[in-house]
């Protein structure tokens, strides 16, 4: 049996060595770097109001995006799980297609919709309202992040809502529950686990998203852009490291908490 466990060790060895050399070691170095500039560098995000502002911006945007994604994704998921129509599989596969798009493409999409040559600008001009643009500010960023997150939520909620117990809803209706009561007392509790897991992923992805904000060159600065600027434009490596540690801890923690909050209940279900 010990020779078997040695075999298992050999099987894992290449992956362990690769991971240690190209992720663990570099990340340990990243963690050590801010110390060169003094311990205060680790909490730079709290000490400098500009960085704190960037962090709060990113947190606020990600939270709002997460809530909007869960709400809209939930509605679309429940609807698609209930309706039967011939083009549903096609629609579902088109709606989940953007899952594999890099963030830059989504930034470009927002420019096509709300940029200076955008669709909305053409529409509002035709209506005699002048050329409206929204791509380069907070609205553009919000819509971009929403576009990025919705496919995952739609896919997850459609699967979860298809597996929902229809009898529970039937029972609630026959007892005279209104639509809102059904939504509040049947749908939301049944989809709570899904919402928690999906919400954490959407939140973490939004916090770390870079490509969309980069393409939009947004006036609303999010933390990943700040990190990028500190690193490439100002060569301030210690600070960039400190800010990425902060960002990484936030995204990891949100995923970790959601995973463990969902864990025991999911195992019991």
């Amino acid at each position: 049996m010990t020779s078997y466990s040695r075999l298992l060790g050999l099987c894992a060895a290449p992956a362990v060595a690769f991971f240690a050399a190209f992720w663990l070691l570099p990340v340990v170095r990243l963690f050590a770097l801010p110390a060169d500039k003094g311990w205060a560098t680790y909490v730079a995000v709290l000490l400098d109001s500009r960085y704190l502002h960037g962090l709060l911006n990113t947190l606020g945007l990600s939270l709002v995006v997460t809530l909007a994604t869960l709400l809209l994704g939930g509605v679309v998921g429940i609807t698609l799980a209930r309706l039967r129509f011939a083009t549903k599989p096609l629609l579902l596969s088109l709606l989940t297609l953007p899952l594999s798009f890099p963030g830059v493409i989504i930034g470009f999409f927002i420019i096509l919709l709300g940029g200076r040559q955008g669709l909305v600008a053409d529409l509002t001009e035709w209506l005699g309202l002048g050329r409206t643009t929204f791509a380069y500010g907070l609205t553009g960023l919000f819509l971009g992040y929403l576009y990025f997150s919705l496919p995952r939520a739609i896919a997850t909620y459609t699967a979860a809502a298809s597996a929902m117990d229809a009898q529970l809803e039937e029972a609630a209706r026959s007892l005279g529950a209104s639509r809102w009561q059904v939504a509040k007392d049947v749908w939301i509790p049944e989809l709570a686990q899904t919402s928690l897991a999906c919400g954490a992923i959407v939140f973490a992805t939004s916090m770390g998203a870079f490509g969309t904000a980069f393409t939009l060159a947004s006036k609303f600065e999010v933390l990943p852009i700040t990190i990028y600027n500190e690193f490439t434009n100002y060569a301030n490596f210690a600070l960039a490291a400190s800010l990425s540690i902060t960002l990484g801890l936030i995204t990891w923690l949100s995923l970790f908490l959601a995973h463990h909050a969902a864990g025991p209940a999911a195992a019991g279900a």
Partner: protein
Amino acid sequence: MAHSRQLPFLLPAITALVSVFMLAPIALSVLAGLVNNYSSGLASGLTLRWISEVLDVYSSTVVASLLLALLCVVGSLLLGVPCAYALARSRSRWARLFEELLTLPVAVPGLATALALILAYGQLSSFRQSFAFILVGHLVFTLPFMVRTVGAAFRRHELLALEEAARSLGASFGQRFMGVLVPAVLPAIVAGSLMVFTLSVGEFNLTWMLHTPLTRTLPVGLADSYASMRIEIGSAYTLVFLLVILPVLWGLQWLGHWIEKHHGT
């Protein structure tokens, strides 16, 4: 279905609205890449001129991305499949710890991983300036997906019995692994490979930090064209990305159905 009658009007209306929001930009971008002039729209007529201009300027990025994704698949297979097996069979605490650690590059923003890689290996200029640097980043990011997908297949109960039967018939570990285990988890291996391929082709967050002017991938080229080229060229380039990624996605979807039909879930 009886339920659809009870669905309040608001829900299908929101669904339609969301669908338009999701699909309109794709349609718009495909169209913009094929018309002569974006501001005059379809009236200006259709053309493949922008696509050929994209291929003139950026074909090297398409080739680079495809090769990089293929190498990434090969690398993640070589590293990931044996590792997935070890993690599926081992009961040690170290295996659980490594399994947790392995998912960190997915949990942490790509920007942080890229920064760490540059700080650790940026001085090795021949490595830093080669595609191998980007490949390493992509491998770190995609390995957990391969290990998770294939590991789940290795954990199936009937496979344990199959492996035991092969062992009792005197098959060596090598024979069992290549002759019994790998064929049994082949659908998961193919699914993992397609997943790794799409992730690598679309990766931007890491790649933008890791690339150099001589090592540009498709998404890096896209960012460049959006910033510096006319809207028709950006759109045509996006269309090229779709053409690269779509067949793989369809394959993945088809395989998903196939696995569900043959193995259940």
